[in-house]
């Protein structure tokens, strides 16, 4: 199982902060994860936006980055504290 995390406004959009999913065989990189989850959840492109970055196991990555069951995959909309 992979753990998917949705931060910021994406948790409102998906209705959840995290979910455990079993990645289909065809979903082996971050680009595929975006398309698959966007479609599964009928999000109309929210996970495909260029401003939404992905982190795999706590490191921000550039698409397409290889993923596998067991990874923690986080969707990060634009960040900012203070």
């Amino acid at each position, binding site marked *: 199982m992979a753990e998917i*995390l949705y*931060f*910021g*406004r994406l948790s409102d959009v998906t209705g959840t902060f995290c979910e455990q999913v079993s990645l289909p065989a065809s979903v082996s990189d971050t680009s595929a994860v975006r398309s698959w989850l966007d479609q599964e959840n009928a999000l109309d492109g929210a996970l495909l936006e260029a401003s939404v970055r992905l982190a795999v196991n706590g490191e921000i990555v550039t698409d397409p980055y290889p993923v596998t069951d067991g990874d923690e995959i986080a969707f990060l909309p634009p*960040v*900012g*504290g203070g």
Partner: protein
Amino acid sequence: MIRISDQPFDAAEALSEFTARATGAGAVVSFTGLVRDQASSSKVETLHLQAYSPMTETGIAEARKAAHERWPLIDSHIIHRTGDMSPGDAIVFVATASAHRRAAFEAADFLMDYLKTEAIFWKKETTASGTQWIEPRAEDYKDRARWTRS
């Protein structure tokens, strides 16, 4: 030192402790960020800050290291709140100490620009008209770009 916590903190106390530790410093700069009571349209009731540990902490530690490499700092201190806050509450505190003032000013400014645009946090504002996720302003990204070295 870096502290990310959902517990309230007192900026003046943090400054006092920081200054006491900064032996030999001639200049201490502090920045305190407070929850404002006015959003664009209506009164702010709550500000919620979300972090992603340990990415948030790691990123801030790297920014602090970059500041210490770039300026001759004696010490620096960063505190950032998470969770729910009310108007007037301190969200963020940055303090820098150096022999002369220019390094202290620039490093504090640099760290705040990092925290505003690159630190791994998300902010949600609750007003009478509902909740809204807040992203950095165009000015914030412009401020941050000042530190890019060609």
